[in-house]
């Protein structure tokens, strides 16, 4: 038992410390040494989630529901996994458009709707007031416990006198703190660094205090967890504590609490304030998403041991909510008791401070300002400075909220367990979830849908949770809770349509059903206005677009008007500074009567949104801008211009690439055509040359003979022989040219049949016998195998063999020459036909070109009848047409061997169609 003045002194000292911390953090921040640009401070500030309810109430809940008390910490843990996806998007949007509260966020998302902003602010106010009352009650009752323990009777009756009321003093202290550190800046978008650091500090204090009592109870009061659990097992009430299943309402309730707390960690006004508005760096979210769950785990580590210890030590004499404080006091550890009290005090004050400032911002920006701005004397035409008014309003609102919380505390707070009041608030703020979450990812969510969802959900909340709580407090007819309104059972506030669930889970189920149902249903059948569609696109696609692109105003205002407007709300000096900064950004001085760029108009609107809310800011700006706001199409056009330009250039690049490819292909084809054309030209030229040459002799000797009738008989005979030989040469040439072009054009007819290559070789040798005899050259035929059947055109194959044989005869020396014709097994399924000679051989250069048309190998001996230069070209075409190969093997001085391989008849490669595959020209070098 401690004297009251000690407790009061310590409380005052603690608050003083908070002031000092907040003050120095603000001063450091002003000097550029920000403490909040730190992921750990950010995470600790989010731990404002753990209020006096956590500090005292968790143990209370654990005495009733065992491990199930963890549910409201599991929800946030699960949500932390989604933070990078959801919270980061909210943070990005809020920073981009200077949205300073969940109400402003909802209003802005749904077309800067004043109505939605106001409604959200109202729900937040109504939902938060009991929660603030709960903290005041916790502080007050912990004070009483500390003062009167172990006299629990005195605890129950304490604080009756008005001036005796500790909660009042606490409320006043908190109001002073919140006003000092919550409205320090005129521009609400300036961060409340001092407040954030103080709150983070409080998170450390409450963690240390709770761990201290946990360690004390577990290891000093009892000899460790083993003994504690053993002793607890002997208490019947502990035995009744099953684990998760013991929560009233079973799994349905459990799931509902899980979802409810997951939403609360995002949508509670104080959570939104610390995690969204006060976020300095999006990367901090990454750290918080694992560190915050860890904090929750650690602070809950000793909840169950303390609950069990309390049940062992006190039994039902002391309320579970008081165990944390009562256990050290029972062990006469007054100092530890004082530390616990300060821990609970810090948990409560942290929550009250942040919740108050968060709700105050909403109420002043989304309820009070819009109402004031509707009044004639605040209209834009009146030029007086409103910046002082903005701050004053916020301060008054802070006091008002705390007064409301205090009033609620006086009225009914002691009627309810801590947990229930907290959960009632949870369900209220969960109403924001559908509008925010769907609005974040679904462009189709409309203003009317969000409005209907919020109103519907809120009304159900009022009916299923607030009214019963008032009824329980005796403020409404008690029959409502027993039989339903007017005795209608299925309208019972805790059992609509006979649904039998825990009241919180029941309310959560119905509010969400109504809220989401109305939002989705109405949005689907709704037509959005231009501004709604613009805002929806800006929010949903926030990561796709850059800030600079977002322009709305087509009409213009003068720079002077904008500066005046801004000055009215943020102060003239600040407004002048903004214009100066913008000028230096532009790189030139802006004149007051100059038409402002749309960017400046938007910049001013955003700054105003930070001070008076987005909906009011829009109204104010539109009052001085002459001309229209852009249509949806207009804005989308600007927004998409950049991305479209990128898309266009990408497509252009693709197209030009495709064009380039096509051009390259065309060029290649053209080259090939030119090449072919040139080849054809050359061919024609060659043919012309080859035809003119014998003609020249024929004509010359014809004229000589004609002009010289007295020529002697021998000479006449010699000349006539030349004429005849050259005529024969001409005929041969013409035949071969025709033959070649016939084969090449594919119009040659092929008489396909099975041909005995061996017999063909012997016949060819026979028919060239005369030639070899004339040149006194030897010719041997050697067919070494029996089956020599190929499929082909016998005449063409004969032509091929004869050509090769006559070539060979031409290139051998008379009398010494020897030509061998062989038929052998070839590689694979082929037959091999060889014509070898002992002539001069062929140079490597000639070997490459010997099958080209009109290629003539220079003959060492002159005076021989020249070939047409087409024979080998025709031979190769014939071999190709039979899917065969023809090549030459030779070394100068050692004779030449022409080799032709042809597929056997019936072999797998024998697929002769008669079509000449010119592309598949044989090339021995590939073998």
């Amino acid at each position, binding site marked *: 038992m401690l004297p009251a003045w000690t407790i009061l002194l310590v409380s005052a000292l603690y608050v003083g410390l908070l002031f000092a911390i907040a003050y120095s953090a603000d001063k450091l921040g002003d000097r550029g040494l920000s403490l909040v640009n730190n992921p750990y401070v950010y995470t600790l500030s989010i731990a404002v989630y753990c209020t006096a309810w956590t500090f005292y109430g968790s143990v209370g809940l654990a005495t009733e529901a065992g491990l199930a008390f963890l549910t409201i910490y599991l929800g946030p843990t699960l949500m932390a996994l989604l933070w990078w996806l959801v919270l980061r998007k909210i943070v990005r949007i809020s920073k981009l458009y200077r949205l300073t509260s969940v109400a402003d966020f909802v209003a802005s998302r749904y077309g800067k709707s004043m109505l939605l902003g106001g409604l959200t602010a109202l729900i937040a106010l109504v939902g938060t007031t009991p929660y603030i009352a709960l903290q005041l009650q916790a502080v007050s009752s912990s004070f009483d416990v500390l003062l009167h323990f172990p006299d629990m009777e005195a605890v129950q009756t304490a604080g009756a006198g008005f001036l005796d009321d500790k909660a009042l003093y606490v409320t006043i202290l908190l109001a002073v703190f919140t006003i000092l550190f919550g409205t320090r800046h005129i521009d609400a978008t300036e961060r409340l660094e001092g407040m954030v650091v103080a709150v983070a500090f409080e998170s450390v204090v409450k963690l240390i205090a709770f761990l201290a009592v946990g360690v004390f109870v577990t290891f000093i009061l009892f000899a460790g967890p083993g003994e504690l659990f053993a002793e607890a097992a002997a208490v019947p009430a502990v035995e009744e504590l099953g684990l998760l299943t013991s929560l009233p309402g079973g799994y349905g309730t459990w799931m509902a609490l899980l979802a409810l707390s997951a939403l609360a960690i995002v949508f509670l006004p104080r959570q939104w304030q610390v995690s969204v508005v006060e976020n300095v760096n999006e990367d901090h979210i990454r750290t918080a998403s694992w560190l915050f769950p860890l904090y929750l785990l650690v602070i809950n580590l000793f909840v169950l041991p303390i609950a069990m210890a309390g049940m062992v030590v006190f039994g039902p004499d002391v309320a579970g909510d008081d165990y944390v404080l009562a256990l050290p006091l029972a062990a006469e550890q007054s100092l530890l008791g004082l530390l616990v009290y300060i821990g609970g005090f810090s948990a409560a004050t942290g929550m009250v401070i942040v919740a108050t400032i968060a709700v105050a911002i909403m109420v002043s920006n989304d309820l009070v300002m819009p109402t004031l701005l509707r009044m004639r004397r605040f209209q834009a035409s009146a030029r007086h400075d409103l910046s002082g008014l903005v701050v004053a309003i916020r301060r008054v609102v802070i006091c008002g909220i705390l007064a409301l919380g205090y009033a609620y505390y006086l009225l009914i707070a002691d009627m309810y367990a801590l947990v229930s009041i907290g959960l009632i608030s949870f369900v209220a703020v969960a109403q924001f979830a559908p509008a925010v979450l769907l609005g974040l990812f679904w462009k189709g969510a409309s203003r009317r849908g969000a409005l209907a969802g919020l109103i519907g959900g809120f009304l159900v909340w009022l009916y299923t949770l607030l009214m019963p709580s008032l009824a329980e407090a005796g403020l409404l007819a008690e029959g409502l809770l027993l039989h339903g309104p007017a005795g209608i059972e299925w309208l019972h506030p805790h059992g609509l349509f006979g649904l039998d669930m825990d009241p919180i889970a029941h309310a959560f189920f119905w509010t969400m059903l109504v809220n989401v149902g109305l939002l989705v249903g109405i949005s689907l059948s709704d037509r959005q206005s231009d501004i709604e569609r613009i805002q929806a696109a800006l929010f949903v696609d926030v990561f796709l677009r850059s800030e600079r692109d977002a322009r709305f105003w087509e009409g213009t205002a003068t720079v002077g008007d904008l500066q005046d407007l801004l000055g009215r709300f943020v102060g003239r000096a600040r407004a002048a500074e903004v214009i100066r900064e913008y000028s230096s950004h532009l790189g030139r001085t802006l004149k007051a009567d100059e038409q402002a760029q749309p960017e400046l108009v938007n910049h001013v609107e955003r700054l105003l949104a930070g001070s008076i809310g987005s909906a009011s800011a829009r109204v104010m700006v539109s009052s001085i801008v002459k001309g229209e706001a852009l249509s949806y199409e207009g804005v989308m056009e600007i927004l998409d211009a950049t991305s479209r330009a990128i898309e266009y250039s990408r497509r252009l690049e693709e197209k030009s690439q495709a064009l380039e490819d096509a051009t390259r292909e065309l060029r290649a084809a053209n080259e090939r055509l030119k090449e072919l054309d040139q080849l054809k030209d050359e061919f024609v030229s060659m043919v*012309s040359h*080859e035809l003119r040459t014998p003609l*020249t002799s024929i004509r010359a000797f014809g004229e*000589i003979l004609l002009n010289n009738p007295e020529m002697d008989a021998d000479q006449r005979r010699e000349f006539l022989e030349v004429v005849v030989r050259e005529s024969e040469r001409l005929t041969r040439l013409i035949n071969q040219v025709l033959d070649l072009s016939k084969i090449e054009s594919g119009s040659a007819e092929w008489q396909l049949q099975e041909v005995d290559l061996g017999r063909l070789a012997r016949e060819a040798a026979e028919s060239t016998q005369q030639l070899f005899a004339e040149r006194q050259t030897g010719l041997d035929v050697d067919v070494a195998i029996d089956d020599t059947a190929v499929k082909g055109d016998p005449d063409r194959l004969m032509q091929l063999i004869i050509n090769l044989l006559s070539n060979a005869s031409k290139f051998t020396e008379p009398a010494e020459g020897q030509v061998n014709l062989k038929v052998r097994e070839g590689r694979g399924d082929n037959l091999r036909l060889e014509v070898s000679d002992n002539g001069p051989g062929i140079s490597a250069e000639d070997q490459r070109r010997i099958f080209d048309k009109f290629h003539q190998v220079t003959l060492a001996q002159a005076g021989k009848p020249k070939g047409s230069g087409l024979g080998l070209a025709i031979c190769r075409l014939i071999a190709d047409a039979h899917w065969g190969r023809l090549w030459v093997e030779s070394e100068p001085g050692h004779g030449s061997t022409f080799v032709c391989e042809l597929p056997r008849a019936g072999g797998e490669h024998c697929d002769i169609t008669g079509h000449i595959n010119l592309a598949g020209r044989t090339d021995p070098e590939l073998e």
Partner: protein
Amino acid sequence: MSQEILIVDDETNIVLSLEFLMKQAGFQVRTAQDGEQAIQALEERVPDLVLLDVMMPRKDGYEVCQEIRRREAWSHLPVVMLTAKGRDVEREKGLAMGADDYITKPFSTQEVVETVQSILAGGAD
């Protein structure tokens, strides 16, 4: 002393006919089978006129003509080119190379003789 003609062609029968025609017109004749033989023959003794085929192995008529025009001692030697390639561009090319005239095969025997005689007569003036 009668003038000498160098006949250069790889076609034996054409050389035979030209030789007959030139001798009949009263010229002395030497022959060559290709471009290289022609250069050799020129180095041996410079004739009064060259009848030069274009398409020949080893060194073609254009090259021979160019070489003749390059060498100081031969630069005024009249050259008449003979070609079986009928295209006009060949004629242009031959004249550009410095040929004095250009006769397409198959030629009229009378034209060849008259061309040679007129060039040699003009050169005598």
